[in-house]
């Protein structure tokens, strides 16, 4: 059974504007892909530990030593809009 997903909610979480056509197509395609992907539940038993990294390591750190920084101009070089040495964005409505 293809999986039913709330495309609007997911698109909102992912901050993706979708056209009506995309929304419909993704609803169908993602449903089919997830149906296929659900096969992972067939094999992965409770006693199997998840693996996040193909070659596990631990305690990889760096020393607390300063390194060169970007100048303000370099930092802002790619910015779509700038004001007073800062990145300018449209107003923020949402709290948090």
């Amino acid at each position, binding site marked *: 059974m293809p999986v039913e997903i709330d495309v609007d909610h997911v698109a909102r979480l992912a901050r993706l504007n979708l056209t009506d056509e995309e929304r419909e197509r993704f609803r169908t395609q993602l449903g089919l892909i997830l149906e296929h992907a659900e096969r992972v539940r067939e094999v992965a038993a409770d006693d199997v530990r998840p693996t996040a990294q193909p070659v596990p390591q*631990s305690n990889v750190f760096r020393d607390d030593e300063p390194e*060169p920084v970007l100048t303000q101009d370099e*930092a802002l070089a790619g910015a779509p809009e700038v004001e007073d040495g800062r990145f300018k964005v449209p*107003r923020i409505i949402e709290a948090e």
Partner: protein
Amino acid sequence: MTEYEAVVGLECHVELSTRTKMFCGTPNEFGGEPNTRTCPVCLGHPGTLPVPNRQAIEYTMKIALALDSEIAASSLFHRKNYFYPDMPKNYQISQYDLPIGSGGHLEIEVDGQSRRIAMNRVHLEEDTGKTVHAGTTGRIAEADYALEDYNRAGVPLVEVVSEPDIRTAEEARSYLTELRALLEALGVSDVRMEEGSFRCDANISVRPAGQTEYGVKVEIKNMNSIRSVERAVRFEIERQRNALEAGETLVQETRHWDESKGVTLPLRSKEYAFDYRYFPEPDLAPVEPDGEWIDRLRKGLPELPAARRRRFVEQHDLDPAAARIVAGSAEWAEFFEEAVGLGAEPRAVANWMTGDLAALLHENDVSLSGGRVEPRHVADIARLVADGTISTAGAKQVLAVAFASGTAAQQIVEERGLAQISDESELTAVIDEVVAENPGPVEQFRGGKEGVIGFLVGQVMQKTKGAANPQEAQRLLRQRLS
């Protein structure tokens, strides 16, 4: 009438005072021109990767150890995903179900009573940049646009979360005071609330006393001093209690503390619930400290404020209130111990420090290290009073002068002629004069009016411009009139 009980949990964010940021070598410094302390990593450039700062990990473990938290054998960084323009990657590297420290407690004191507040967790994450909401009115909701500065983005941030164990605004204040002192003693943060290196949010609910289930939880943000946390918690408890008494239903929400109005106000409600989609940060390996590493850190812990307080009470016989102040910070404790080390009586040193010295510092708005008074001054003053060289009044003068000039106490006593006259022959001459000039009172005293002695001693003091040792003067007067 139902009795209500408040349930408060505090969540503190502490910026660590490492030399560099959490995941890159960019210097970690407060202030500076916007976007001058960034590199491709902390600006979230494509292709960059985080590498954890060992010092930040150690600082976090020290905080956890100082709070008696358990250090996880294996701890993980997770990604907390949400969009906000002050966050360069639109996810925060944080910790989720495997924080560095779990459990533990912090001992606080309210009205001379000790209480243990249980800790929930100590975890490490990265700070965000800073947003300026620009526009005509200055109110966020009415801003025309926003500006982003990423100097602070990626600064190591430790989250210290208490259990909902706090019951009153006073306890909240004590908790924060204690935590700040502990962090200061560890030397891991500047703990300056006004600069944002120590920030606090509170979760508050109210329930009928005796009820075990929690009430409706409200989160309070935007408190930027310990005092404002105390005020906000007091206000919010009261607000919730009044609402419940009036039969209103409370809603789970986030409220904002308005410092000038002294009230909490609801934040604009969110359009949809946050869904952070936590998952293990694939760019980082787990933190797995061995016993040796933990032991080394544990052995290196300095004496913490609570232990110091206990020691001052036991070893120096201070009363708990004085001990709390004197042991409250490393600066004060060191000052105290140095003065005591110079041979002064501990209780006297504590009295001078918590009384006149604290008042002078407060009036002049300086810190102990910012003033000119040194432990030697206080030790000398205590000793000079104890051996009768100067009076308490004279000592106050010496302290005030030393505070302003830094001059040695002995020198001040000499220059200002503050030494008391205790010499018998000198005093006897003055007493003779007083007896001769006041026949009436002398008769009254001899006639059994005991109280008149005070008047006669006062005359001696007047003639010596206050320099006579009053105890000695009285003894000699009695001897002369008997």
